[in-house]
Each structure stands twice: as C-alpha cells, then as structure tokens.
C-alpha cells in the first residue's frame, strides 16, 4: 500500500476559508476546530516527554547524578501530582517556585549545573531546551488531575496579590495589560479565542494548557516562554526568566484555575 502523505488538514482549512460569504466565518471556525481535533492524535509533545524522561533518569552534569531525587513539592522523586500544585513555596530555597525554576534548582543542587547560566540560555537551546523537555515529562504525569495550588504560606498569598495587580498593570507603547486580552469573557484576537484569566477559564484552558506543542513553529513552550512571548507582543520590555513577575502571574492564574483539569501536554496552532 503506497500513499503520499500531505497536509490534508491545512487543505481542509484552506478550502473552507475560500468561501467568501458571511457563512465563511462559521465554516472557517469549524475547519479550524476540526484541524485541531485531528492534531490531538499524535501530539509531537510526546517526543519531548520521552526526552524529558531520559533526562530525568540520566546521570548528568558536573556531579554526574540523575534528577531522580528532585523534590518538586511532594517529596524527593515524586512526579505524579506535582505539576498541579505548582507554583508553591519551597522552604529550602525560601521562595515560591514554578515547575521550570524548581527543575533548575534540582539541576543545580543535584547535578552541579549553574542555575544563572541556564536562566540566561535562550529558550530552545542548550540546557534550557532540556528544562523544557523535563517540564513536559513532569507535567504529563499529572495529566487529567485538577489544579490545587496552596495559598497557605504568606509568600504564596503575596504572590497571588501581586500577580493580580501585575495582571492589570498597563504599560508598553500600546498601554496593554494582561487584562487587555485576558480580562473578559468570549473575546478573541484575530481568530484565536482568549480565555478570561481573571477567573477559572475551565478544564484544559489557559494555565491548564501549558506546556504545549505549538504546531506553527514546531516548538514546545512552557509557561515561562508563553509569558515571555505575551510580554513581547504587549510591547513591554522582557521579563527575566523565572523572575518574581513570572512566578506571581503563574500563582494568580494557577489559583484562579483551582479544580480545572490539566490537559498538559496540549497542542496549539
């Protein structure tokens, strides 16, 4: 049986979009929804998950150790359920950390890598790419579980409140805040639906959908990169990797998403 595979899905969308009447709007939306549905099967995120699992178990770094003793908040080596409780306060570092910064802490303490060096590495390169793969692996272990971030510690509460205030802060050349796009129900930018992140946007949406594989550029994006690119398009200056601003916003979104189901690793356009 011989066949030539081609981008059938895109052809479906292209055909639908060519119908130039008011009906076209509905057809295009349907076409895109169908395309996305077809993409769910065989999410390339699984390739990153596989890589992440390898990296978790492999002895690496100056200390030639694996990450199998890494404490992501539920005890050393406990991966299942960790993702849906992050970010949270960690006593050993004295700060609230998200998945990516916590993985880097473990890469430093267990394997001997230098966290500042990793934080300065561009997304998709070197050890930063490994952090993304590891984050995909760890997050996938919580797939189907519901978000349940702690708001017990004073720093966790402070992160929520500052995250909320930052969410509404207007800045950049366009006076955009996060709320400009994500502050209302049922809005979209071009044809991309925008979840309202000031409240629980529902299962598998918003905070519950990252890390995700982005088909348009074939890249795996964790929440740090997702936030980074938001600020770029808002015409703000760049958030530093793992900075308080990024953690605060993640806490705000994560707490708002309480009991929403995680579908990570998701797939996006």
């Amino acid at each position: 049986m011989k066949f030539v595979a081609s981008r059938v899905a895109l052809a479906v969308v292209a055909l639908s979009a060519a119908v130039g009447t008011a009906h076209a709007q509905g057809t295009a939306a349907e076409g895109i929804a169908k395309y996305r549905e077809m993409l769910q099967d065989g999410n390339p995120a699984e390739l990153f998950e596989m890589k992440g699992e390898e990296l978790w178990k492999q002895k690496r770094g100056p200390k030639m150790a694996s990450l199998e003793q890494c404490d992501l908040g539920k005890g050393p080596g406990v991966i299942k359920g960790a993702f849906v409780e992050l970010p949270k306060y960690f006593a050993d570092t004295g700060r609230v950390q998200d998945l990516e910064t916590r993985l880097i802490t473990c890469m430093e303490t267990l394997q001997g890598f230098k966290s500042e060096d990793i934080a300065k590495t561009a997304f998709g390169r070197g050890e930063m790419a490994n952090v993304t793969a590891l984050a995909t692996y760890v997050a996938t272990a919580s797939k189907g579980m519901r978000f349940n971030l702690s708001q017990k510690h004073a720093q966790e509460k402070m992160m929520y409140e500052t995250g909320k205030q930052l969410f509404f802060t207007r800045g950049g050349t366009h006076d955009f805040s996060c709320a400009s796009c994500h502050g209302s129900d049922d809005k979209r930018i071009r044809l991309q639906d925008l979840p309202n992140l000031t409240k629980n946007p529902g299962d598998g949406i918003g905070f519950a959908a990252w890390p995700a594989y982005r088909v348009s550029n074939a890249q795996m994006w964790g929440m740090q990169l997702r936030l980074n690119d938001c600020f770029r398009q808002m015409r703000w200056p760049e958030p530093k990797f793992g900075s308080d601003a990024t953690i605060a916003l993640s806490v705000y979104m994560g707490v708002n998403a309480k009991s929403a189901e995680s579908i990570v690793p998701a797939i996006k356009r």
Partner: protein
Amino acid sequence: MADPMRIRAAVAGDETTVRVLMSHIMEPGTRRDAAGALIPGHFIRDVEATHNGKVVLEAAFSGAVAQNPFLSFKFKGGAKGDKVVVKWVDNKGDTRTDEAVIA
C-alpha cells in the same frame, strides 16, 4: 542515530491500528533564510512498516510533510504480542528503525 519514534499499536477485531510519531526536522528545501538563500532540504523520503517481517505499509514522504510527522494506519491481521517495526530513511541517508508490540 536520530531521535526515537514513538509507536503505538493496538488490535481490535481483525484490524490493527498503528500510530507513529516521528521526530524529524522535515525541512522542505523551498524555504529561504534571512539572507534569501535556499535552506537545503532535509526530510524523510521512505517509510516502511512490517508486521512479523511482512511489509504492511510503504510510504513516500516529501518536503510537503510537516515537522515531526504523525502517521496513523491500519492493517488486517495482527494479534496481541506481535511486533510491528517502522523504519524511515531520509534524503541524506539517515535512518531510524523502531518497533512496538501490539497491545
């Protein structure tokens, strides 16, 4: 060797469904870089799947197939525990072979 494929195979009745996720850059050869020069093509050319040594699928891919290709196909026969082997060869001669057990 190139990054591993992710293969899953399951039998229902007399039909086996195989789903393969391949890790490959699939550069078409028609894109240009910032300087305007053509980026050389680097893509999977041939795909072959066998079941218990017998060929059940042959495919000819081209640069038109997207990065990290996902391939799903069915064949008659196959039983739980049987081996399905998938092999790809790209236009540079790189190759990758992986296998899965039918669930």
